[in-house]
Every structure is written in C-alpha cells, then in structure tokens.
C-alpha cells in the first residue's frame, strides 16, 4: 500500500497532525462582518479521536470545513493559521492556500478525508457508489480504472458492506442510512488519509446503527492510525469514543482537555450545563409522581392494526402494503406515563395517531372508559378529543404560523364553546402562566418564539381543555439537550397537578427513563416487550431490547468498553 509511510522522526511524532491557532472566520453580510469563529485554537493528534461538542450554532461545522479550506460562502478566514503536518512531510499552513488551487485539492480527500451528517444527501443520487469511490481514488493515486475498482471493493469490504463487488454498481438510494454512511466512510478513507473529519456522522441514524458506525470507526482507527475529529452534540457519544474533548459555544472554544478530565471536573459552566442535562436524564426524575397502586385502567388497547396501502395508477390498485401497526395490545393505568420506544419505522408514532384517530385503524379496539374509540362516530369523537390531547414532535410545524399565540391556544376553547370574550382571554393568560410563559406575549406570532417556548405553547394548547390523557409524540426530540429537561419537568409538574395520564412516544431511552413508569418496546409494528421502566432497562428479556439498550451511549468515559454490544438479527 502506498499509504504506509515509514515512521517520521520522533520530532514529527510529537507534533500534532493539525494545529488550529487563533482561527477567526467571519461572514461578510451587507450590514458588515459577523464573526462566527472568534479566535479558536486546538490540536488533533495522530491516532487519537478529538470530539468537538456544542449545540446548534456553536460553529463546529464551520471549523471542520475551514480545515479543508472550504468555508461556505459568504464566509472568509480573517485570521489565524491551521498547520498541517502529514507523516514524513513538512508542515504547511492550510489557510494560506488558494481554496481552488492544486495544493489544497491534493490534501482534500488525499491526506484529510471528510464525512458528513446526512448520508441521504451526501452521496450523488445519480452516480453509482463505485463510480464515486473510484473517482476519489484516482484523484490521488496514479492507478488504472481496474485497479481503482479493486481498491474500492476492498474499501467497501473494510467497512463491512456485504457483497462489496455488487454494492459498487448500486446507487445511494438503494441503501439504508447506515449502509450509506459506511460507503461514505469507505470513500473518505480510500486514500488512507492522515486525518478523518466526521461532521455529526451518526446524528441522522438510529441508535443501534449509530453504535455500529461508532464501533466501525474505532476499529478502523486502530487499524489505520489516523487522527479523527468527530463533531457531535451528544455527550454520550463523546464519552464513548473521545480521547480529547473540545467544547464550543457561540464561536468560542470554552474548554478543552482529556475526556476523563472533562467528565470528572468540567471547568466551564457551559460544559457543566451540557453534562448536567445528560446526567439528569440517566435516572428517573426525582419529582415523578407514581400512579396510585389501586388506580384502574383508563385505556385498553387490543390487537390494533393499521396497514398503509400504496395505491397506484388510474384504477388505484393496491401495489404495496406496509403493516405499520401489526397487532398491538396494552393497558394504560389512570395517572400513569407509559413510554413507547422504538427506532424509525417501528410504528410508534402511528400507534399514537391511531389512538387519537388521526388515522383510522383497520382492526382492533381502543377502549377508553368503556367506549371504543375505533368505532366512535363524529359526535363521540368530538367529545373524547376534549379528554385525549396530543403534543407533536416539531413545534415549528404543529403551530400555524399565521395565527397569534392567543388564537392558537384559544382555538380548542372556541370550537368546543368553552369560553368566549373576556373569559377566553383570561383563560389563555392563565394557561400561558401555567406553562411558564408571559401572558403579555399572547398577541405575538409563533415566529417570535424559540423552539422550547413554542413547545410550551403546544403544551398550553394541549391542556386547555383539561384533558385526562395526553399523547406526547417525541415532544423533546427537536430541542437542544439543555431545553429538553425543562420541557419534561413542565410535563411532570402538570401531570402531578392535573392527574394526567401519558402515552409518551420516543426513540430516546434516556428521556423515557426520566419520564415513564412503564415502557413498551416496539419493533416493526409489534410490541416485543413491555414492563416497568427500571426493570426493562436493568434486565431486558427480548434480544431486540438488549440490542437497543446496549447501543445507547453511556455518558461516562470510565465505563467505556465494559459492556457487551448486542446485535439483533431478526429471525427469518
């Protein structure tokens, strides 16, 4: 292999492969320059993984792109240096190079590889995987097409893609998200770079797939010895893979250091805040009110079925059937919070929507206080919908942007003739206070609020009719970690005050553990396991639950490698 170079001198081995010094990047706008990176500095070391953490808008991605001198327009590098010292070669300053020049292009993909967040859109939709990898190889290696194809096949084998010789001739859309990200990694590593930059490579993936990708990257690093810069917002992932940690906030590096030091003794308040938010989600909420042991069932779901039929053509023939919900049964006790956990495509959201009758299930029954919701007519539905309310995942999509907060919260009160005029306004003001918002803001439109505030408005709308049961569909997934616990705590308080029962749908085991008394684990339209949350987490029975739980990153670097990873293979 050409990539294997003789080891450099000891001097070189001690020099960090990348040194970022006082880097300053600004966006020039019409109003003047806005700095997005304010003089940041950190190093990447050979064979080590450096995690760059921060919430959205902290400047992580811009940093990554600046290393390759690919600052997205209208950004410009205003100061600082990025020194690159490849194995056995002189140190060069990447920021001094012409961003379109030959010198930097030889480094891109040749000495520094990069993978991106969206495996969906990061690969060309109209070129085969093989074409794209072969291109990457031939840009930096003087080899024939045939040899390059051989090398590409080898690269795919290395990232554990089954039947790599066939995979070369397939298109990205024919692969699952995890497979695409593997192909991306294969492409980025095909020229044996000294550095691999990974920009949130697992954020768009399910947690079990994320675990596989993280294992794969760790293994490749052991074999190939490159430096990895891993960008993430997830402290759990950091604890799993990082050697060094760089914490960024609003364009500043607020703290950096060894992963154990950061987790044991975080110095900066922002780091403590990030860790705190995660740590709190590692156990059940302290403020949780358990349902009374003798409370009866509020909801009995029996053998719920929903199949989506894909119809095509003029005659609308059914060409494909997806069993989104395939015979689900469970009970919900009065005052209980039942979690439904599962990965994308498991049907968990569909279950919630069937109970709310957004969808009409094809079979089964949902018994609510003696009434079957599946067979309820229009008038009955109107009545039960006052008692069963829903909270949506995306607070940007679930609030009509053309209505003021007052109109939004008042809507259920108006259409159900609960209140009007002055009484209505007073009621809205009270609801806003209840969810922790200033009633003076009720004339504002949703666009004037942040994500967390919007989710509070959604909660206010949900509790406006004093419901008995709330179906919360991933209510915290669209929020930054630090906001998540606040919204969860609000829901917990309301549950205690109003005696609410919850069906709480989430893909995130930590959130479920914090909030739910019991949990049902869903896989491909079925519940594979249901029971007390703590029991399921400490002693899962079903192999899928085991795989799921063993994939959740533990935000404690000292426990790294202490547990066995399960992979779930569906029985044929």
């Amino acid at each position, binding site marked *: 292999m050409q990539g294997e170079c003789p080891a450099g001198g000891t001097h070189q081995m001690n020099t960090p492969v990348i040194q970022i010094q006082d880097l300053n990047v600004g966006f020039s706008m019409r109003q003047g320059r806005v700095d997005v990176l304010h003089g940041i500095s950190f190093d990447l070391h050979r064979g080590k993984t450096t995690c760059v953490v921060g919430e959205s808008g902290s400047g992580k991605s811009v940093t990554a792109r600046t290393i390759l001198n690919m600052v997205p327009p209208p950004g410009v590098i205003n100061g600082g240096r990025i020194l690159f010292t490849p194995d056995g070669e002189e140190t060069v300053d990447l920021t001094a190079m012409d961003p379109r020049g030959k010198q930097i292009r030889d480094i891109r993909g040749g000495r520094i590889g990069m993978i991106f967040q969206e495996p969906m859109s990061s690969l060309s939709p109209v070129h085969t995987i093989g074409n794209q990898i072969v291109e990457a190889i031939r840009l930096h290696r003087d080899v024939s097409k045939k040899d390059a194809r051989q090398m590409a096949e080898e690269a795919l084998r290395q990232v554990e893609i089954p039947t790599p010789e066939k995979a070369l001739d397939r298109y990205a859309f024919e692969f699952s998200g995890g497979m695409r990200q593997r192909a991306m990694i294969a492409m980025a590593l095909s020229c044996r770079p000294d550095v691999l930059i990974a920009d949130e490579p697992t954020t768009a993936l399910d947690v079990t797939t994320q675990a596989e990708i993280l294992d794969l990257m760790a293994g490749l690093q052991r074999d190939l010895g490159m430096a990895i810069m891993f960008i993430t917002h997830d402290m759990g992932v950091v604890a799993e893979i990082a050697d060094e940690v760089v914490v960024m906030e609003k364009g500043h590096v607020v703290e950096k250091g060894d992963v154990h030091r950061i987790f044991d003794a975080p110095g900066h308040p922002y780091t403590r805040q990030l860790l705190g938010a995660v740590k709190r989600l590692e156990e059940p909420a302290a403020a949780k009110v358990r349902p009374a042991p003798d409370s009866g069932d509020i909801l009995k779901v029996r053998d719920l079925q929903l199949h989506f039929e894909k119809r095509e053509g*003029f005659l609308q023939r059914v060409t494909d059937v997806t069993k989104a919900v395939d015979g689900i049964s469970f009970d919900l006790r009065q005052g209980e919070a039942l979690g439904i956990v599962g990965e994308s495509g498991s049907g968990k959201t569909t279950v919630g929507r069937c109970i709310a009758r957004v969808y009409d299930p094809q079979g089964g029954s949902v018994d609510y206080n003696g009434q079957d919701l599946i067979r309820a007519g229009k008038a009955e539905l109107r009545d039960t919908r006052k008692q069963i309310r*829903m909270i949506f995942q*995306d607070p940007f*999509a679930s609030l*009509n942007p053309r209505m003021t907060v007052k109109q939004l919260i008042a809507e259920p009160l108006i*259409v159900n003739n609960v209140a009007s005029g002055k009484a209505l306004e007073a009621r809205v003001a009270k609801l806003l206070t209840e969810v922790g918002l200033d009633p003076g803001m009720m004339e504002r*439109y949703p*666009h004037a609020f*942040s994500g967390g505030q919007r989710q509070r408005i959604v909660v206010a709308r949900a509790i406006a009719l004093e419901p008995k049961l709330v179906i919360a569909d991933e209510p915290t997934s669209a929020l930054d970690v630090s906001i998540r616990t606040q919204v969860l705590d609000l829901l917990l308080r309301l549950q205690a005050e109003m005696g609410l029962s919850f069906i709480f749908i989430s893909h995130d085991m930590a959130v479920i553990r914090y909030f739910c008394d019991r949990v049902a684990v869903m896989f491909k339209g079925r519940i594979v396991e249901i029971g007390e949350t703590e029991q399921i987490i400490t002693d899962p029975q079903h192999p899928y639950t085991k795989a799921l739980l063993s994939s959740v990153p533990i935000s404690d670097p000292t426990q790294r490698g202490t547990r066995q990873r399960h992979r779930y293979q569906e029985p044929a």
Partner: protein
Amino acid sequence: MADDTDPAIAAKAGPRGRDVAIASQWQLIWWSFRRHKLAMVGIWVIGLFYLVSLFAEIVAPDDPSEQNRRAVFHPPQMIHFIDRQEDGGWRIKPYVWEMDRERDPDTLAITYVPSGEKIYLQVFGRGDSYKLWGLFDWNVHLLATERPRDHYFLFGADRLGRDMFSRVIYGTRVSMSIGLVGVAIAMVLGIALGGASGYYGGRVDAVIQRLIEFTLSLPTIPIWLALAAALPPSWPVYQQYFVITLIVSLVGWTELGRVVRGRFLAMKNEDFVIAARLDGATERRIIFRHMLPSLTSHIIASLTLAIPLMILAETALSFLGLGLQPPAISWGVLLKEAQNIRSISQAPWLFIPGGFVVVAVLAFNFLGDGMRDAADPYGH
C-alpha cells in the same frame, strides 16, 4: 438555565422599528416583497396601466375610431413642455409642432413636414365629448388641443388617420381586463378542480390529474384557433370578448390547478392541520380558517403569473384575425395592422402596441416572481 434563547427573527425589528413579533402574515409578506426591487417596479407599472384603463376616455385625446383622411400615417409628434417665446422669455406650456401634409413631386408619396406653427395643448382641456364608463356625458381630456379643430398624434396615426395613442389607450383597457377576467375564470376552475383533487385524493385525484396532463399536452394555439374559428364573426363585440376570454382561460387553469392540488396535498398532513382537527374544529373551519390563509398568498402569486399568459394569448389570437374583431380594439387587434410589411416599413410606429404588450407582460412577470418569493414568509 432560562429558556429565553430568542430566535434570530425576533431579534430583527421590522422596517422603521416595527415589531416583527406581532407582525401578521401579510405584513411579513409585504416587508419581504418590498425588498424585491423589480417587483416594486412591476407593481407601479401595472397600477399605472390599470389606472389608464379605468380612465381611458379622459386619457385618450381623441375618439379611437374617428377616421381622418388628412392624417393618414401621420408620424408621431413629441410634446414639448417649455415654450420659448420670441422675446427670449419662457413659460411652461405644453405644445407640439404642427406638421403639414405634402406630396413628394417625384414619387407622389405623402410626407409630413413641420410647418413651424405650434399647437398648444391644455391640461384637462375640452375636446370630443364621450360617455365616461358609458354613464356620464363629458368632454374633458388629460391633454386637449386648445383649438378643438387641431389634432396631435403622440404615437402617430394609422392607415385611416386614426390616432394611435388613443387606440393604444383603449386597447390597454381591453387587453388588461381580458387578463383579469380570464384569470378569474381560470381561478374558479383551478381552485375547484385542484382543491377537489388534493382534498379528496384517490380516484378523484387520478381523474383530474389525467385531465390536467392531457390539457397541458395539447398545443394551445391550434386548439384556440379551431375554437375561435367556430365562433360566428357576426357576434357583437361584448359576446366575442367574453367567449375569447373563456377560450383563453381554458389553458390558464391547469397550472393553477396543479399548484392548489400540490399545496392541499402537502398541507392536509401538516401537523398544524392535524392539530386543528384534534382541537375539534369542523371540516369547514379547517379549510377556511386553517388551510386557506396559507394558500392565498401562493394562489395570488400564481394568478399574477397567469395574467400575462392570457394577455399573450389574446394578442396572438386577435393578431391572426381569430380573436377580437374590429371595431373592437385590443393590443392584438392593433398589431394586426402591423402584419403588412409595407405598412410597417412606412409607419414603424404601428409597432408601439407591441411595446405595450412586452412592458405589461414583463411587469406582471416581475410582480409575480416577487410575490412568489415573498409568498411564504416562514420559509424553512
């Protein structure tokens, strides 16, 4: 850990410091529309055109159908506003140089030469009498000659000596209004069929989709020509006008139908519409209170972009002699005069109505583009 991270938009104040937080959809649209300079130009031009159409009788100096044998192919005259007098002084008074008709002794061709006399014009002076909007008798014109027997020809005259400027003004009224009326008909068709398609889905959708595809695949002009040819030419002007508008709108509805359908389909499954349904709102309320307000801005933008298509269609039909027939006046009817290569080589000003078509269509396109860009102020 207060959750007070204001999003970017709240930090920005609206123009002149107005509060974005309480700005409604239409205010946000207007603010973003105003930044679109070409669209602002478009809106002014279109406003002017419709104003002229509304007051065509006043703006036009002459009766558009009045023939004048002494002014056949009279060239355009420039209006001067500063009147220099012989004593060296000056005053602001609009006038044109009078042209005398002469016959070239060699070629016998008619030419017009300046006589050296001025014809003074009066703002809101008296001239031909007319019935404003067919209701009120009046004789005031925007710019009338001081002596009623004089005439001036801003855009020249045609082969019958009719004043082109007056004809273009009246043509503006007809052509611009055909666009509006045609779009109104297209809107009814487009919203009804597109809405039904998107709202009901399934088989209804499949049938309407095929219908739209089929209509789009037809070459419009041959079909229009055939339809228009089936009209008896003896029909009165207003009946022709209505039927031609109908024919022209037969093509405009498909694009609109597709837009409405697409939006309805997408919005039916939006979380906020589902939320309204779960709030207990009736179907009527969901459609009119929750869905239509977000559709209207898109519909208006599409309508604006459909108007120029209608204008172009009418112009082409009338140009070929299958649309409006003289004595009706529209830009297309006027351009039919320019069809004869001998006429235009002698009187290139017959092209002027074409300039109006181009400017109107451009203005509508600018306006429509600006409106489409501004239609969704909450862009993701």
